[in-house]
């Protein structure tokens, strides 16, 4: 990824709550920090609570986790 683009994406993503909704499995993956700034939340309801508390919108992603 282009360095400037990466910085830009990271900065914007930090303004959103990042919810990896695909993985609401029985065993939830641990939170993983990306560049020390993005922490994916693997629970939609928890993401909603964090979004409400912070006033930030959510970035809800469905992807193949494994």
């Amino acid at each position, binding site marked *: *990824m*282009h360095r400037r*683009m990466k910085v*830009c*994406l990271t900065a*914007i*993503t930090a*303004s*959103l709550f990042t919810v990896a*909704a*695909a*993985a*609401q*499995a*029985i*065993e939830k993956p641990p939170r993983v920090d990306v560049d020390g700034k993005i922490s994916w939340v693997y629970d*939609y309801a928890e993401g*909603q*609570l964090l*979004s*409400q508390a912070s006033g*930030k*919108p*959510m*970035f*809800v*992603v*469905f*992807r*193949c*986790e*494994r």
Partner: protein
Amino acid sequence: MNGMNLNQFQFEYDLTWMAFFQNASGQTYLRYGGRRDADAETYMTKASLVRAMRQTLVLHEQGAAKPSSRYEPVAERVRTPADIPPMRGMISRRKVSCIHCHDVKVAELRHARDQGTLRKEMVFTYPDPANLGIRLDPDIQYRVASVAPASSAAAAGIRVGDLVRQVEGQRTLTFADFTRVLELAPASGTLGIVVERNGRRQDEMQLQLRPGWRKSADPSWRASGGVVGPNAGLWGVPADQARRREIGLTANDLAIKVTFIHKPWSRSAGIRLNDYILSIDGQSNHMTTRQMQSYLHQNTDWGDTIELVLYRDGKKRTVQMTFPDSPPE
């Protein structure tokens, strides 16, 4: 997809990646994701993702999430993948618990089959706006990049450079937003579209929904395709150039080398490993193995008998393949 509320998150389940931007109440600002038949990543550019994130922040500031509607529901009633009857058996046979997006669509189609309501065109979900003649700009996904000649879009008066503001009254900022409206569009009739041209909002134009408009030319990427029809019961790779020359074929001709046979109907037909398929059900134009399977899904039915032309030991031979009357479990 384990435990996800399918009433809330309705999207193209044949995809491997999809995103929603929402407020804390679950109302959607915009969708992001989707693909063309020919390429999975055309509409997954960094520029468009950054744009979608910035648009979301502006809409969030304005409190402009979409109100709950059939397009972007905030569902109170919960329906999870486990509520689709065929999914229960699929889950019990799994070694790992993860339910993929395409599993949900496969289960929905199998349920329709069990109910006797399955139609082959059900595979064609979330149609590409290109089906109506509109190719969206991959980076600015509300901008019309091209208009196909003689298409519905051309007939409606859509032009290159138009900025799509609304379709059927819905804000469509991304390719995924547009396909969501198309998913809920009828089989025939018209679709209202509002564009901005040279800074001025135009009067609503009408896109004609022509017969079969939801179908696309190459659904072979869709994992769900196999539910609606039989497959060849084998796998293969394209013949190399030397073999094509030997057989007297061009690059436009079908020539698939059989590398794996996994169904009784392909064995019963007399097909062997290293045979070359030169024609199947009368189709002799070049196809990948996936496209060949997709052709059978869409154009043949369980119980049908089809003809194949094979090449083996320097000779062509014709064989018949009969599919079982119903799909094996």
